[in-house]
């Protein structure tokens, strides 16, 4: 039985308070780092741990830190990405609402390692409780001397404040997040230059997902080797999986990376609700291609999911049973992406809208035979032709559903209605 690491305090009463965090071993990594480690040693430890970003892309965290310029004269920033909005994902909300100090400790250590004196929390505007929890936690961390001038008597100072977003999924993309922090429309920037060189106000900036930062205190406390021993060689550490859809027990489950989809669905989520048959799984949030029941033994790790033609993404598993209409699912996903397209790149702005029109038409039983190739054409016209990954994210699940469930699209067009859900 795997012992939770990141969510170990989440079930405790008043788990969001600094007292409960400290009574359970919190804020012990920070003094250790400030007294015993140089910034470079911290970066080396994080590289050795094998920690990869938990926000979707899975970039090695330590390497990201090492890209930040070493020049102490250059002002640098750290941003905490709490703009969780990928459909199916609700892990960051859990961590922020139930154990915010774990993340703050991670932010302080990361800022020390990269030489930033200023850090920002960017939180999506809808998370009202999250905003309140962040503010209270930051206040309490200041009061205990973990934030502010000369932290714990060291030379290191750090200020942290909360910046509330205002409803835009795209601001979870790191350069869009930076634009929004600057008070602009959240339209992603062209990369390169990467934020590690040119970020917030043109200064080197490290942007990390909440869950990524929550790992840091544990890596410091228990060592890189211990951390690397969890999970698979290429996907180290624990992962908070979010399960939703047609399972008995929906919710968050913290398990080692590399746990199979079967174990997560059948053991942890209690199996399929109403004993229905499994039809398809979205393994990593709305922007990841679907898997079929035959692929259910795939381990949930970066490399294995990539080999299976999909992605770990945010680890948000959406389970769909035999009664699910896949055209309806595709339409819903596309409605989300068409709504959230920032509008900067024409292929994404116009393409997602056109794909949505077609999917709505097919779903309503008004589809034409040429609609399927037309969808594929549009998808290929969007893919790889946008500044940020939203374009790819929008078309990949649709292309996978067109490949896996083409007959359902054809049925909709032929019979002018849905035959999958049993009822007309």
């Amino acid at each position: 039985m795997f012992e939770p690491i990141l969510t170990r305090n989440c079930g405790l009463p008043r788990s969001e308070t600094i007292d409960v965090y400290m009574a359970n071993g919190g804020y012990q990594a920070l003094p250790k780092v400030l007294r015993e480690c140089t910034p470079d040693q911290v970066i080396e430890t994080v590289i050795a741990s094998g920690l990869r970003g938990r926000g979707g892309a899975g970039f090695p965290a330590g390497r990201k830190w090492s890209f930040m310029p070493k020049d102490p004269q250059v002002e640098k920033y750290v941003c905490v990405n709490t703009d969780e909005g990928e459909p199916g994902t609700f892990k960051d909300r859990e961590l922020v609402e139930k154990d915010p100090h774990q993340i703050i400790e991670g932010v302080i250590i990361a800022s020390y390692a990269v030489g930033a004196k200023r850090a920002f929390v960017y939180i999506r505007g809808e998370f009202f409780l999250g905003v309140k929890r962040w503010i209270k936690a930051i206040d309490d961390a200041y009061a205990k001397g973990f934030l502010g001038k000369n932290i714990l008597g060291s030379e290191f100072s750090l200020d942290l404040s909360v910046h509330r977003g205002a409803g835009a999924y795209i601001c979870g993309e790191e350069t869009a997040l930076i634009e929004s922090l600057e008070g602009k429309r959240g339209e992603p920037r062209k990369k390169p230059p990467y934020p590690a060189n040119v970020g917030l106000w043109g200064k080197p900036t490290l942007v990390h997902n909440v869950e990524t930062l929550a790992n840091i205190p544990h890596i410091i406390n228990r060592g890189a080797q211990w951390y690397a021993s969890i999970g698979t060689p290429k996907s180290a550490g624990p992962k908070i999986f979010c399960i939703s859809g047609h399972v008995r027990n929906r919710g968050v489950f913290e398990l080692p990376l590399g746990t199979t989809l079967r174990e997560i669905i059948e053991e942890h989520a209690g199996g399929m609700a109403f004993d229905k048959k499994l039809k398809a799984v979205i393994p990593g949030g709305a922007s990841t291609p679907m898997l079929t029941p035959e692929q259910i033994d795939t381990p949930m790790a970066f490399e294995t999911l990539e080999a299976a033609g999909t992605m770990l993404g945010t680890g948000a598993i959406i389970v769909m049973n035999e009664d699910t209409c896949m055209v309806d699912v595709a339409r819903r996903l596309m409605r989300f992406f068409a709504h959230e397209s920032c509008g900067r790149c024409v292929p994404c702005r116009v393409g997602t809208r056109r794909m949505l029109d077609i999917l709505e038409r097919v779903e309503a039983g008004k589809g034409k035979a040429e609609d399927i190739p037309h969808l594929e054409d549009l998808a290929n016209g969007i893919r790889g032709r946008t500044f940020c990954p939203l374009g790819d994210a929008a078309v990949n699940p649709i292309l996978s559903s067109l490949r896996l469930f083409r007959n359902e699209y054809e049925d909709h067009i032929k019979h002018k209605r849905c035959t999958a859900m049993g009822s007309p």
Partner: protein
Amino acid sequence: MSPLATASRHLSGEEVQIFDPAKRSMLLTALYIAQEQYGYLTPDAVDRVAKRLGLPVTEVYSMASFYSLYRTKPTGRYVLQVCEGLSCHLVGGAEGLVDYLRRKLAVQPGQTTKDGLFTLETVQCLASCGTSPAIRVNDALYENMTAEKVDELLETLRGYHV
């Protein structure tokens, strides 16, 4: 303290310079404050924000139209936002609840009831997929919603305005 004013919260002396309200970074916060004071971003509110931050009015409108939590039209006292994300839909939320509210309140999504109490809206994922279906009412989140729970909620909210 209102969480709306968060950006100016933990600033040290020298940073007040960077974060002078006249600076661009305060725009999101300024729009929240204006919206709270005016109820929605009226032309007057937008004008004031623009003047205060030294920005063109068009630039401020451009922000207000980009971010979905800013409103340029009046709403009811309570904005009922029904999540139409995939995970809410799979467990019978989304359409079911929207339909129910549509009939119950006799409004279409985007409209406000005649008494000015409720505005019905559909929104994208609220990150409540494990406790779906979800409805957000102003700043509060209601999870595992059913028709009965919607009835109770409406009853409670109406009770505040008798």
